[in-house]
């Protein structure tokens, strides 16, 4: 956590996305593992889970917005994220808690997964240097893997008669892979933004 925070401080080329990403990473790390522990202890709360997922989606949407240059994609991101936010709010406003579990998560995943693919593709299209040495390639790949993993878990959790904890193990593995991608990204960061040269 501290390392990522320091990386965000030293990395100013994509200042705002990096700060947002670090905040998200910090928040996600605490929130996801807190929820996992809460679930194991059978004290998990559906509303808190969904609130976290919504907040994560909004921050991710903002990161994707900043990394996309296309005005059309930016508008689509704003519309989709606002739509998802309104849907999330409506659950509380109109007391729609009886809705089948997973609908809002499916909406979230079906918005974020294509957005992460589009953002990664458009970003990588712009990179003229070695992609494997670009930190944002690894960060976006981590996002894709994480969103795909969460979407897969959310999508299959209601279909398969496995124990609920199994899906938390699945989430744990997904997160470990994601963090592995983020650690590679960290290694690709320039050491100090004030240094120069080739």
């Amino acid at each position: 956590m501290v390392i990522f925070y320091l990386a965000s401080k030293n990395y100013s080329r994509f200042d705002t996305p990096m700060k947002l990403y670090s905040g998200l990473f910090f928040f996600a790390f605490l929130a996801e593992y807190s929820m996992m522990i809460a679930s194991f202890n059978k004290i998990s709360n559906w509303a808190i889970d969904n609130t976290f997922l919504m907040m994560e989606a909004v921050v991710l949407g903002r990161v994707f917005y900043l990394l996309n240059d296309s005005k059309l994609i930016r508008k689509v991101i704003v519309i989709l994220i606002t739509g998802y936010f309104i849907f999330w709010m409506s659950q509380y406003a109109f007391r729609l808690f009886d809705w089948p579990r997973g609908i809002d998560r499916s909406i979230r995943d079906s918005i974020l997964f294509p957005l992460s693919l589009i953002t990664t593709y458009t970003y990588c299209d712009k990179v003229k240097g070695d992609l494997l040495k670009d930190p944002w390639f690894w960060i976006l790949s981590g996002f894709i893997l994480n969103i795909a993993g969460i979407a897969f878990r959310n999508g299959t959790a209601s279909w398969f008669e496995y124990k609920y904890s199994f899906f938390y193990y699945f989430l744990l593995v997904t997160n470990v892979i994601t963090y592995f991608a983020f650690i590679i990204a960290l290694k690709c960061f320039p050491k100090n933004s004030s240094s120069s040269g080739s």
Partner: protein
Amino acid sequence: MFSKEFQFFWFIGLMTIIFLSLIIFFIMILVKNGRVRQQAEIAVKDAIITTQEDEQNRIAEDIHDDIGPMLSAIKLQVANLSELEPNEITQSIDQIEDHLNMVINNVRGVARNLSSQLISKYGLEQSLIENINLVSALKKLKIDFKYDVKNIELNNDYQINIYRIIRELLTNSVKHSNCTLINIGIKNINDFLIIKYSDNGDKIGETNGGKSMGQTNIKNRINLLKGKVISFSEKFDKGAKYEFHFPILVII
């Protein structure tokens, strides 16, 4: 509900499909990046070759336009020495000496322009100051130079390219513009090196149909440094105005 085996089959199947799709997606991106990098490398090589050729042409032009006529004049003066009266010979020798000094200065100028050792030895700021002093002394111009680059250390290739850009702009102003005042500013803001250049000339647009000499050379160097052109005077009546932003974290 479906049997456990059936569910397991679909679970593994779906996961495999998603995993394979993602692998194909990443391979596609990496292959495309490989092609883009190849094209970029070719473009940079082309830019280097074009820049070198422009440089050679410019040196040839300097020698042909400045040194050549002076040497011809000296040759004529030396040839006429035998026909002169004894009291005129001393005066003529003085003129020959003056012309020879000018040739020596010009040769030094060309050598200084050619040499990148000057930059590695004295740094960008000092090299530019020397060049500016030389130009302002020779052409009787007022050149206002501000250098405010702090807390960064530019590498040699980077400095050479910046030096050549400024020098090319100076050459354009001196040779093809009728300017009397030139303003040059170099500073760094965050991770960008900002160059601002302007003069009060009025002839480039008229004499060269909007395309001054060395502008291609400047653009090649800007591309090489992955710089951004904020303003670039292609055609103008009241002076030139250029502004370039260069990322300092650049791989040459």
